[in-house]
């Protein structure tokens, strides 16, 4: 209990931030038309590729001879980069059909 209380009081702003981020995440999405479900999913997926930042930091922190960390980090970067590069690209392609208009009216 104490730990939790301390953690809470100590990280108050962080907790605010997290809760607000969650609300924001909900809010931003809550009125999406069904047609955008798949592109949105795809876009969100691309954003989750932000995990690549961790992989970069991992490699940068690693000793140049720590091949275990380096190679796993490399794998991480590759995986993350595929997610990021492919993710945004495929989302953009999905959204291509929304290019046109609104005309007239």
């Amino acid at each position: 209990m104490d730990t939790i209380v301390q953690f809470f009081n100590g990280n108050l702003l962080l907790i605010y931030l997290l809760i607000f981020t969650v609300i924001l995440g909900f809010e931003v999405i809550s009125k999406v038309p069904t047609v955008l479900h798949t592109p949105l999913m795809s876009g969100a997926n691309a954003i989750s590729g932000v995990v690549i930042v961790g992989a970069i930091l991992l490699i940068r922190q690693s000793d140049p001879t720590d091949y275990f960390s380096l190679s796993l980090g490399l794998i991480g970067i590759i995986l993350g980069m595929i997610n990021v590069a492919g993710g945004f690209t495929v989302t953009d392609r999905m959204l291509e059909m929304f290019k046109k208009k609104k005309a007239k009216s």
Partner: protein
Amino acid sequence: MEVVETIESSFLVNLLYLLGAVAFVWGLRLLSSPDTARKGNTYAAIGMGLAIIGALIEPVQNGGNNNYGWIAGGMIAGALIGFPAAKKIKMTAMPQMVSVFNGLGGACAMVLAIVELFQNQGTTMGLGQAAIVYFTLLIGAVSFTGSLLAFAKLDGRIKDKHVTFKGHSILNNILLLVVIGFMVFLMINGGTQGMIIGFLIVSLIYGFSFVAPIGGADMPVVISLLNSFTGLSAAAAGLIFGNQLMLVGGILVGASGTILTVLMCEAMNRSLFNVLIGGFGGGAVAAASDDGKVAKTANASDVAIQLFYSQSVMFVPGYGLAVAQAQKVVKELDDILEANGVDVKYAIHPVAGRMPGHMNVLLAEADVPYPKLLDLEDANSALPNTDLVVIVGANDVVNPAALDEPGSPIYGMPVLNVWEAKNVVVLKRSMSPGYAGIQNPLFFHDKTKMLFGDAKVSIQALVAEVKNL
């Protein structure tokens, strides 16, 4: 001097991260409206760019090693795989692709957690720290195998029946208990490398098994759920690396992914629980022809977007339009589409309906101008250049059997060759036949999608959706 530099650069990094976070939020926001979605994706991508730059220049412990070579190699390799894959994939296979990407993202988080665990081998982590790392590992791994299985199912490489069995959900529950128990044990006691690998394997298995019983038709929902899992694992990894952007970005994806999952279920008129329990496309209207072909169903919003972004639309009214008394809503839809630059025409088959001129009476009532009505001949010559045909309760008059099935009772009757258009949507209540009482191969045509329901209700839904765009 050195201190100042660090502070300055960390200010820059913090600013980059902050901008990145805002770009993510704004991107997501824009992504949720058709007009701005593309811009939103770009914003999010820019946010990602900022994040990566931030990560590359952030002052780190052991500073100076950097190993930029490794990083550059990895990024180039990843980009070389990711870009072309995304560029080449067919429109229809995109959801699978997303699933794969998502799985790789999960795998990345998983790898980070493994390294973290192995590096801290021997040292004691705090309980919180340990919880975070194991959580990252678990979630990343589940997302990884789950997504790959989802891909395989969606891509038709694995059939539902190959990977599940009766009572699968019991297995899943047991597996879940095992995984969580294992994790708590490891958190409290720490683990050997072997145990960590064991945990990894169990997690991977659980991911696979979790997705296995879920019907192929429900895969998009599952992908969305796994996507929010990946977000959470990224956020957890952010805690490991003390990186606020990973945290914020991950949480954002986690939250919006969750709500998106719920919305997707709602759009299918099902609960998330219902989907996860599985049952192979349970709610969907399954409709198969004699030779086992399956009619594809569409929902109103898909059709709406097709309508809206078409250059030319042809309505084909039939007896069902009359029964549903949908003529006025069709005209309303027509008006909205015309206002948005869509060219709308009506193809009137000579025997559509139940009396000569039936469609004329109805469409005149709705005030559809005469020049918009094409008779059989004109319609058939206009159809190949039509982007989308919307068949409103017609059946026999668009039956290709009249042309290519000599045995059919309607063989020889001229029909509207709607399949020559780019896309066909059929609005009717069920798969039941029309006046002639015969099945219609059109419904199983590649280009055709069915929108089931009373024609008036369906058109009203289309009107609402198109107005949304």
